């Protein structure tokens, strides 16, 4: 029997600036690394390595930084801010540093 997995509404339906780029509902990834970065963050949250709200807060900050110069022309794209958020949260939680469980 295949385990039932569903998209979490708090991730799939984030609103405002941190909302996931979509086209007709389907996620839009410009490059494969964007897809991988998306999956890594979601996977870690699903496993309880951090709370999704922590990642979302970090994402809001990263996206906010990117528009400091010109809100209509942010200095980096969505998934670049996403990756930066992931790196910062991993560092803060020391998830890459601590020994394997």
């Amino acid at each position, binding site marked *: 029997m295949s385990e039932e*997995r*569903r*998209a979490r*509404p708090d*991730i*799939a*339906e*984030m*609103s405002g*600036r941190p*909302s*996931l*780029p*979509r*086209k*007709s*509902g*389907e*996620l*839009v990834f*410009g*490059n*494969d*690394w*964007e*897809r*991988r*970065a*998306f*999956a*890594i963050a*979601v*996977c*870690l949250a*699903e*496993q309880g*390595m951090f709370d999704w709200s922590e990642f979302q807060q970090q994402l809001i900050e990263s*996206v906010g930084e*990117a*528009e400091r110069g010109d*809100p*209509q*022309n*942010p200095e980096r*794209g*969505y*998934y*670049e*801010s996403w*990756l930066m958020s*992931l*790196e910062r949260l*991993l560092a803060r939680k020391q*998830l*890459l540093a601590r020994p*394997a*469980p």
Partner: protein
Amino acid sequence: MSDHRHQHDSPPSPYHRSDRTEARNKELAARVEKIESLLIEKGLVAKDALDRIVDIYEHDLGPMNGAKVVARAWVDPDFKGRLLEDATAAIAELGFGGLQGEHMVVVENTPRVHNVVVCTLCSCYPWPVLGLPPAWYKDPAYRSRVVIDPRSVLAEFGTAVHDDVEVRVWDSSAEVRYLVLPERPSGTERLSEDELAKLIDRDSMIGVTTVAVR
């Protein structure tokens, strides 16, 4: 389609671009690769789990949210009033958001009016409430024929609309996403909101069918 002023499906947020140089992309890909391999090494993520997550989030959006919106409107006249007045805000009350600048408009079916939704140019769709559009919604045949001869198209979906009922066709766009509020079927007076929500399917909220008691 780019010469058409009626914009469709364009991501309105400036963040949603990914126009980068090849070198920059390589650098970013390497950073992701590094995180991924470290996490795999530590046993914190598995490669196939990552693939499954992308698959789930790309495809697992169903019409359940829309059904909840409709069921609430059937049992709560005040909510229905707000829904018809400002659908985006009323839908947000139930915790469903995620649209990127588009407005939701709810059109109500009555004994005199039957509404049906299309996107004549592409496949604009109220995905936060209805999930992903069915294949036929994107089919050029549906998109053109439902405008020219909606009654025949509805008949093909098994929906007979009486001659004295007006059929209104709503064309979705990047700015406005329509959702049909179907009529509550008779014989459902005793059902709870949750039971009602189970009766409401995707097609009835696009307007190609009506809600029936199963």
